[in-house]
C-alpha cells in the first residue's frame, strides 16, 4: 500500500515475533486477571502443575478450578477461534480476489448457525453436550455443498456464480434462523441460549471445546498451507493461473472446503464472532503484501491475539458484567475498517 505505510513492508519474522509476544501477553493477562482476584504465585503454581513435568505440591483446588478449568481453556479457545476465522477470511479474500470477502461469504457461517439453532430449538443440545457444535459443523459443510452444486456447470465453478449463490443462501438461511428462533420464543431457556450463542463468545468454554475445535483446525490449516501458492496465482485471474500450471478447479475446491471446515469449527464452539475474518486478513495484507505463504500464517496469528485481546476487553470493560465477544470484535473492527476506508479510499475496496 503505497500511501498507507509509505511503501514499507514489515519483515515477516519480525511481524510474527511481535504477534507471538502479543498473544502471550494477552493470554497471560487472561490467566492472571478475572472477576475473582487471585494471588499471582498461586496462578503460577497451578500452571506449573499442569504444564511442567515432574511432581508438584498440591494447589488450592479452588484456584486450580478457576485457572485451569475456566480461564485457561477460555484463552485457548479464543486464540483458536480467532486464528481459524482470520485464516478462512484470508483464503476467501484471495479466492474471490476481493478484500471485502469474509469467511462465511459462501454461506458457511450462517449455515453453521442454522445447524446450531436447529439443535438448540429441538432440545437436542440439552440431551447431548456436543449436539450443537456437531450440527454447526454439519450445517457449514452442507451449505458449501449446496452452493458449489448450484454454481457448478460441466465441472467448472465460476467464482462470481459461487459468490451470488452464497449471498442467496446466506439470506435464505438467515430467514430460517429467524423462523426457528421465533418458534422457540415461548421456551424461554432455549431462546436465551440461542440469543447468547448468536452473539458469539467464549464464555464458559472448557477444554472439551478446544479438543472439539482441534481436528477441524488442523485439517483446515493443512489444506490451506498446501494450497497457499495456488491462491497467489488465482489473484491474477483464472486464465493466468491455469496457464502457469494451476489446476484451478481443484485449487478452488480445496480452498473452499478448507475455509468451510475452519469457519464451521470456529462458529461451532464460539457462535458468530464477526469482523475478525474480514478485518484481520485485510490488515495483514496491507502490512506484509499478498503472498499467501506469509499472509496465511500471519493472519492466523493475528486473528489469535486479536480475539484473545477482544475477549479480555469483553470480560473487563463492564466488569463484573460481561460484554459479548462478537460485540467487542465488531466495535473494534468496524471503526478500524472504516478508518482504513476513509484514509485510503479506493485502495481498500480494490477489486475492480
Amino acid at each position: 500500500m503505497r500511501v498507507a505505510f509509505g511503501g514499507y513492508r514489515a519483515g515477516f519474522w519480525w511481524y510474527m515475533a511481535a504477534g507471538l509476544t502479543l498473544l502471550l501477553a494477552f493470554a497471560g493477562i487472561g490467566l492472571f486477571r478475572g472477576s475473582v482476584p487471585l494471588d499471582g504465585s498461586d496462578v503460577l503454581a497451578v500452571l506449573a502443575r499442569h504444564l511442567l513435568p515432574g511432581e508438584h505440591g498440591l494447589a488450592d483446588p479452588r484456584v486450580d478450578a478457576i485457572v485451569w478449568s475456566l480461564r485457561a481453556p477460555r484463552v485457548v479457545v479464543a486464540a483458536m477461534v480467532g486464528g481459524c476465522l482470520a485464516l478462512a477470511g484470508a483464503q476467501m479474500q484471495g479466492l474471490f480476489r476481493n478484500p471485502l470477502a469474509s469467511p462465511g461469504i459462501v454461506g458457511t457461517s450462517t449455515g453453521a448457525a442454522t445447524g446450531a439453532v436447529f439443535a438448540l430449538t429441538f432440545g437436542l443440545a440439552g440431551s447431548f453436550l456436543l449436539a450443537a457444535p456437531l450440527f454447526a459443523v454439519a450445517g457449514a459443510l452442507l451449505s458449501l455443498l449446496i452452493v458449489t452444486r448450484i454454481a457448478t456447470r460441466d465441472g467448472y465453478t465460476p467464482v462470481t456464480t459461487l459468490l451470488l449463490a452464497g449471498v442467496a443462501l446466506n439470506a435464505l438461511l438467515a430467514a430460517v434462523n429467524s423462523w426457528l428462533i421465533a418458534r422457540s420464543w415461548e421456551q424461554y431457556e432455549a431462546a436465551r441460549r440461542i440469543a447468547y450463542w448468536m452473539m458469539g463468545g467464549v464464555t464458559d468454554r472448557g477444554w472439551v471445546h478446544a479438543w472439539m475445535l482441534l481436528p477441524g483446525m488442523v485439517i483446515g490449516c493443512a489444506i490451506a498451507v498446501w494450497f497457499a501458492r495456488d491462491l497467489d496465482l488465482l489473484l491474477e485471474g483464472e486464465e493466468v493461473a491455469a496457464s502457469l500450471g494451476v489446476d484451478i478447479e481443484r485449487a478452488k475446491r480445496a480452498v473452499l472446503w478448507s475455509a468451510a471446515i475452519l469457519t464451521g469449527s470456529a462458529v461451532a464452539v464460539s457462535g458468530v464472532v464477526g469482523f475478525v475474518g474480514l478485518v484481520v486478513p485485510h490488515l495483514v495484507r496491507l502490512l506484509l503484501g499478498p503472498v499467501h505463504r506469509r499472509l496465511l500464517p500471519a493472519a492466523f496469528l493475528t486473528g489469535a491475539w486479536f480475539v484473545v485481546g477482544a475477549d479480555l476487553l469483553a470480560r473487563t470493560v463492564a466488569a463484573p458484567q460481561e460484554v459479548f465477544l462478537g460485540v467487542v470484535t465488531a466495535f473494534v473492527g468496524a471503526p478500524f475498517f472504516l478508518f482504513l476506508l476513509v484514509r485510503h479510499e479506493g485502495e481498500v475496496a480494490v477489486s475492480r
Partner: protein
Amino acid sequence: MTAAPAVAAAPRLELVGGGVERRGRWLLRGVDLVVEPATLISVVGPNGAGKSTLLRLLSGAWRLTEGRALLGGFDLAALPRRQAARRVAYVPQTVRPTFEFTVREFVTLGRYPHESRLFGTRSADREWIDRCLEDTDVLALAERRVTTLSGGELQRVLMARCLATEAEVLLLDEPTSNLDLAHGLDLLGLARNLACEGRSVVLVLHDLNAAARFADRVAVLDAGALVAEGAPAEVLNPDLLRRVFNVLAVPLAGSAAPVFDFEPLP
C-alpha cells in the same frame, strides 16, 4: 537455424481442426496450424478475428469445442496443467494488476510449475528470476509494486514472468502494444533470439511490418478462420491485405522483407 545446446528443442505444438464456440458463436473454426520448433510465428488479423482466442487454445487455457491441440503429439487437454505449463507459457494482453505484489514476487509466480509445494523457491530459482528481470530490463524495478508500474513497464514485467517459466513454447498476445520504440524493438529482438535458440514463439502483432521483419512465418486470421499461413514474403501481398484488412498496401522499395506503406481504401 540450429538450436543452442542450452535449450532443449521445443516440442511441436499443433492445432488440428481447432474450433471454439462461445454463447452460440464460433470464435474460431477449422484452424490447422503447426508451430514448429525454433520458429517465430506472428499472428495478424483485424480486430475480432480470433487472434487472442487462437493463443488461448494453443495454451490450453480454453477447451476446444472441436478439433484437438497437440503438444509433442500428445493431447494438450489431457496433460496435467503443471506439466503443460513447464512447456508452454502464455502472456495475455496486459491487464492492470489489483494486488500489490512486488515486481520480483510477481515474476516469481512464473516459477509455479517448478516449485515445491511446501518449500517454494530455491536459490537457483532466485538467480534465474534475476536473469529474467535483466533480460527484459526491469531489474531496477524489482522492489516496486506492480500496481505502480506504467503500461510499458508492466508489459516488460509480464514478459519476464513468461521467461521465468523456462517454457519452450511462448505465446505472447500483443507484447509490444504499450512499449516505446526502443523497448518494443528490444522485445522483438529478444523473441527473435529465443526462436534462434530453439524455442518456438507465437506473437500476436498489429504492426504488419514488424511481423514481416521479425517473424519466420505469418498466420493471417480473418473472421474466425485462418486465411493464410507461410513465410512473410509468400503471405503478405497487397491483394491479401486489401481483402483482410481493408487497406491499400503500397510496397516499400529497398527492403528484403515485404514491408508496406498503408493507406485507407478510396
